Every structure is written in C-alpha cells, then in structure tokens.
C-alpha cells in the first residue's frame, strides 16, 4: 500500500505526469463522445493506430533531441525522403521493398548526421538550421522522384492494416519496438548523458561527458525512429509522394511540448507519446462530435474547416496550459525555498 502511494507520488512529480493528465482527459472525452462500444472496437482502434502512427513515431523521434537540448523541425519532410527513397529504390533497381526500406533508413540517418553537424559542430541555431534543411531535403526528394508515383505490393500494406491475433494492430507493434529500444537505452549511460547534456552542457562537460558526441547519438536514435515513421507513412499511403508530411515537423514539436518535454533535459519518451496521443484523440473527438451534431440537428452542415479550427483551438489551449502549469510549479518551488529559509533563520536564533 505504502509502495503504491510512493510510486504514485513519484509519478505525480515525474515529467510525464502533465502530459498523462491531458491524455487521459481527452481519452475519456473521446470515449464518451464516440461511445465506449464503438471506440474500443478493434476496427476503430486499428484505424486510429494505423492512420496516426507516422505522427506518433515522428513525435517519439523528436523527443531524444529535445531532451538533449536540440531540435530538428525538418523531420517531417524527412519522412517523405524515406518514402521516396524506399519506393524508388524498389522500383528502379527492381529489388524487394525491404532493401528500399533499408536504403530509406540510411537516408534518414544521413540527413540526421548532416543536421547534427550543422547544429552541434557549427553551432547554428537548431531551429534555423533545420528550417533551412527542410528546403534542402525537399529539393533532394523532388530530384529522386519528380511527381507522386509508385506503389507498394499489397502484401505490405495489408499486413500494416492487419490485426495480430485479431486485436493488436500491426502498426502498434512499431510503437512497442520503439519503446523497447528506448527502455534499453534509458538503462545505459546514454540515457543519463542526454539528460545531462540537455540540462546543462557546461556541467555535463565538467563531469567528463562530450556533449557533441552525446548529441550525435541522440540524432542517430532520432534518425532511426524517423525512418520507422517514414516506413509507416509508406505503408499507410501505399505510394510515393516527395512533398508530403512536411507539417509533421511542427505538429510533432507541439505534441512534445504538450506532452511536457521542455527544451533541454526534461521529459521522457512517454511525454512525447502522451502529447501525440492528445493531438490524435482531440482530432478524433472533434470529428465524432461534429458527426453527433449532424445527427441531432437536422439541416446542420458546416465545412470540415470548422473541425480543424475547433481542434486546433483546443491544441492551442493545451499548449497554453503547459506554460501555466510550468509557471505554477516554479512559483511553488520558490515559495517553498523562502519558507524553508525563514524556518532556518528562526532555528539559528
């Protein structure tokens, strides 16, 4: 009992808590609006996972970078890079799509290395460097594939859309894989070092850590997960498009912030997952809410832009809330210090 209490209080203080609260809130909202029977049906869950897996994975990919105190907003267009490389390699060389995916992974790691070089070695501001990189990657994409084309063998996308054992969405397997790798990494030195480097690079250096090397590792992890996201995107769309997914970069970033990842040394991959989940479920909820309105109000029709407006306003409020909670935490901490100091003074006298 006491252990449960302690674990609970530890979880309350953990960085993932804020994101978790938001996530649970919107999850309940979604279940209520959609109806539990429908929401928990394996078909609806499968659609939820398979349609949103690229965004969720992109958010997860971004989290090690944010923890290590850096950023890559060109990650969205990098999914398209993985997509076009995979498709074109399979199509032009006549090899299996597996080889294509492998080349896509290599492409993703290469772009990550380039971004790392710009940010950690040349010390360009990460947001500017990666923004510029968007246009470079986009140019490369169009060079590789000039217009949307290509297709994925049916066996691939059917597997992607399938349910394992009749209940587990195949796409969720990718999520499990990423979390398993992350859980392992968190138990290695790398897991400590990225928090140290993100928290305070100077002190990390004093503790014998090489910040640039740690950030390189973080970029490689990001490159790997981003490649998975690109593969998920390819399987989902079952075709190639050089100019897609660009907006995923900024959406993943806002998902990270909503999930409670700070800019450097704070948060975890769970935060990223909760943030992405919040984004996904809000859109889902708003969709079903409007459906509900159509049904009960005869003659009620609005364009789908209204749905976007409503869900984006809610996302904006979510972002605002993270700022409010962060500020409250800081104030509480400061107040606590003052109280303790006053107590100490009294003891002295």
């Amino acid at each position: 009992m006491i252990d449960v209490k302690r674990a609970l209080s530890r979880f309350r203080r953990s960085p993932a808590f804020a994101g978790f609260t938001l996530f649970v809130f919107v999850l309940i909202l979604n279940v209520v609006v959609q109806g539990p029977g429908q929401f928990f049906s394996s078909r609806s869950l499968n659609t939820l996972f398979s349609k949103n897996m690229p965004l969720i994975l992109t958010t997860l990919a971004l989290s090690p970078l944010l923890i290590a105190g850096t950023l890559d907003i060109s990650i969205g267009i990098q999914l398209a890079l993985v997509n076009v490389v995979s498709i074109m390699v399979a199509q032009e060389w006549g090899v299996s799509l597996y080889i294509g995916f492998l080349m896509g992974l290599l492409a993703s790691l290469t772009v990550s290395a380039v971004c790392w070089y710009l940010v950690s070695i040349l010390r360009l501001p990460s947001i500017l460097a990666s923004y510029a990189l968007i246009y470079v990657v986009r140019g490369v994409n169009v060079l590789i594939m000039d217009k949307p084309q290509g297709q994925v063998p049916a066996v691939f996308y059917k597997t992607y859309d399938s349910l394992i054992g009749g209940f587990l969405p195949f796409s969720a397997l990718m999520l499990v894989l990423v979390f398993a790798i992350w859980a392992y990494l968190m138990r290695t030195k790398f897991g400590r070092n990225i928090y140290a480097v993100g928290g305070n690079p100077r002190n990390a250096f004093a503790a014998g850590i090489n910040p640039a090397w740690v950030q390189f590792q973080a970029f490689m992890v990001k490159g790997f997960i981003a490649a998975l996201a690109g593969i998920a995107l390819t399987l989902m769309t079952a075709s190639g498009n050089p100019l897609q997914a660009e907006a995923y970069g900024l959406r993943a970033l806002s998902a990270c912030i909503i999930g409670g990842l700070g800019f450097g040394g704070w948060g975890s991959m769970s935060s990223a997952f909760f943030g992405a989940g919040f984004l996904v479920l809000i859109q889902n909820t708003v969709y079903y809410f409007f459906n509900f309105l159509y049904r009960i109000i005869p003659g009620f029709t609005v364009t789908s832009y209204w749905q976007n407006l409503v869900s984006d306003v809610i996302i904006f409020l979510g972002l605002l809330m993270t700022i409010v909670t962060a500020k409250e935490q800081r104030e509480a901490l400061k107040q606590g210090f003052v109280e303790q100091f006053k107590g100490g003074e009294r003891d002295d006298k």
Partner: protein
Amino acid sequence: MRDIDKRYDAVVACRGASLQVQPGEVRALLGSNGSGKSTMVKILAGTVKPNGGQILIDGRPVTINSGEDARRLGIGTAFQDLSLIPTMTVIDNILLGNEPMGRWGMVDRRQSFADVEALLDRFQIGCDPEAYVQTLMPSLQSMVEVAKAVYLKPRLLLLDEVTAALHRDEVQLLFDVLRELKAQGTAIIYVTHRMHETFEICDTATIMRSGATVADVKTDEVTLDEIVYHMTGRQPEAEEAHDGGRIDHGKGDLVLEVEHIALYPKVRDISLRAYKGEIVGIGGLEGQGQPEFIRALLGVMRHNDGVIRYLGQEVDFHSPADAVNHNIGFISGERNREAMFPNRSVSENIFAGRAARGRLFTYLAPKVVRDFAKAAVEEYNIVVGSLKHPANSLSGGNQQKLAVARWLAMNPTLLLLDDPTKGVDIHSRREIHRILRQCADEGMTVMISSSENEELLEIADRIYVFYEGRVSGMLAGTNKTPERLAAAIMGMKRDQNGVAREAVGA
C-alpha cells in the same frame, strides 16, 4: 609516498601562480576577489585551459583538457557555482559519467542505489535519492555537489567555496568526511573565504593576490593578521586612515532608508541609510547579496521582507521604470546586458534615459537628441569618433562614461551603481570618480557597490560591508582603513585590542 605537485602559469587571471599539495594534506587556497583562486580550480578540473605553465602529478607533467581528463587523473571537483544538472535526480547526478555498469552496457541499478545511499548516509544527507536536484534546498545541493566529487574516490579533491550555502552543523559533517579522506591519503585543495574554517580543517595555506601566489604558510604557524596582510599586501594597522571622504554625514537629509530588507536566498537582512550629498559604498566579497540588494531597491526583483523609505515615504517599486520616474538612476557594471544598446548610436544611447520619461509617441526632434548628446559628451570627456557611431565602437571605459552621462544628464536624486568600473581602465575610472564626487557635492546621493576595496576607500564617504546577506560592518571616518575593510569583508569583527575575531553568526 606520492608527491602531487602542480605548477602553472597563465596570463589573464593568473600570473605565474603555483601550488603544491601532498597526499593526506588539506591545503587552503585563499585570496580576495579576482585573485585567481577559482581559475586555478577550474584549470585543474579541466573546464578552463591554461595559456602556459605546467601541471605535474607524481612528478610527471600532464595535460588536462576536459573534465574527462581530470577524472582519469583522479581529480574530483566540487564547484562554487555547482556542476549539478537541476533537472536530473540526485542519484543520476552523483553517478553521472561514472555509473556502475552491469550486463549488456546497462547501468547496474541496484549497485547504483546501494552506492548512492551509502554516500548519502556518510554525509547524512536526508533526501530521496530520486528527488530532482532543482527541488532541493541550496544547502543540500551543495552537499550533493561534494558527495558527487567524493564518489569518484579522487586522489585530489578540489572544493571551491562549498561551505558558502551550508549551515554550521552541515559544515562540521563535511569536515568529518574530509578528515576521513585525509587519513586515507587524499590530497585536498580547499578554497574558502571563511577564515575560521581554514584554521580548523586546513594544514597549510597558499595565499593568492592578483593572480599570483604570494605566500605559502602552515596554518598553525600564522595568525589571522598575517593572512590578511598577504591578501591585501598591507601591514595591518600600519597605515593612517584614508581621508578620501567627508565625515559630516548625518547632517543632510535622509534620502534612502532601508530596514531589514530580505530577498531569499541571497539577501537575508540588510538595513542602511543614505543621506543627501554623500557617496555610500557597498563592499564585500562577490556573491554576498550586493547586486540582488540593488535590484531589489530598483524593483527589478521583488523583495520578500522589509521596508524601503525614499525621501521619507515608504516605496515599493514595481519596475525600474517606476524607480526612474521617482528620480532614481541606475548604472550597472554589466554594460552589455543591462546598460548599453550596443548597436545604436552614441547619441541615442545618451538620450535613452531621457526618452524613458515622457510620453511614448512624443516627437523627438533629431536636433534635440544631438545637442543633448553633444553637451553630455563634452561635459564628461567621452572619447567618441562621432555621435553617430554605434556604442560598441567605444572602449569599455568610454562606454561606462556614456552610461554615467546618460543618467547624470537626468540629474537624479539618488544614483545607484553596481560595480560600475568593472573592466574599466584606470584613467576612465578616475574620470568617473571625479564626476561622481562632483555630483555628490551638488547634492546628489550616490550609492556605489564595488568588489574592489581600493575603489571604495577612495571614493566612498561611508562603506557598508555585506557578508552573507547581512551588513557585517559600517566604516566611516577614522575607521575607514584597508585592513578594517578587509576584516569586515571576511565577516570578522575586531575587539578593543585590534585583535581579529570571528564575526558572530558566520
């Protein structure tokens, strides 16, 4: 017996300083502000690279280019400004870079817990090893910082003013651990400003002044006065009192009265007064709460406790603009951050103070700005290429004169200066002093904070000395001697016979 021997000589902060420490020896490193103590520590810790000189360990020359190098050589460091990562837990901080490893490249968690808990027990740190460091009290953070350095089982332990935030009983605990380490043959370099600690724990002391090591003594063979002599370069009580200032304060009107102001954690309890037409100095070591005090007066930071009376009225400024509207001027030593608009022209910089008053959209004729600036430049001998050149084209001294000119042109009732001559050449410094004195003669009240004793003695009529967020002494008239100032800065008070004693509540 292994000899650990360090010699080193760098250009900027340290000039040919050298230092030796033997295994099982606790050596104090003493000196006043800017004498290069912390630089020495940072060089050994690998965070600063020396420009010259040599470091020898066991008689062999070594190079320390990074924290990693220092660790490999068995050097553990507890830094003055702490090297903890606030967003990480205590356990992760202590083990950082030195985790016990288990299988498959994973950190052995059980071992980690055991190690850290043993360590926390040894220091009697009563905190959850999984607490985030940023939620800990400053004193606990300091203890964790030391524990982190000790965890490395270093052959040489560097402690840079680690006791500044500690309570008395925590200091005793720390000393017990240090004695234990000493018995095990660890060499310890202990930087402190608290003299009684030197005598209590240290065997030997190296004293630094202006970047050079000037004396190497055994602590049981010297007196406090001798140490102060080495630090200041003056024979105690051998000199006449400075007569830089007037003593007839108290006759003028009370301009500023501060009672028991507190801004935790830096400022604990400060009371002082400033009268019309006098220059009040604020002295003390760095980090005793002077900048926070001045910013609390201005309303940049909100104080937690206490009362400020200005011209007989209780005030509580909400922002510096509020203070400016009450005719208070402020000049900071942090020119680039708090005073200059480096890329704007000289005349705009001078006019900035005037522009802060008045309505936002009032038309400012270029000629008004130019004439205003021209008059100020001439009056204060600021060497400028052209009024149109950007402010960062000027030398540090001239930039500072520019800041002074900006405020003086507004003729404030009270002028606050925070270390205004930091990095300013001697000539400009004299010029600034002359201007300040002239203004005081004309009835302005000037309050100047400085970490340089010479400057305070030269310019201030009265000097309040801050020590750990409290006033440890007020010097005026015949009391205003360099060694009394030095003593007050150390938190010491002198009894009737002139023998140094520890201040109460140190």
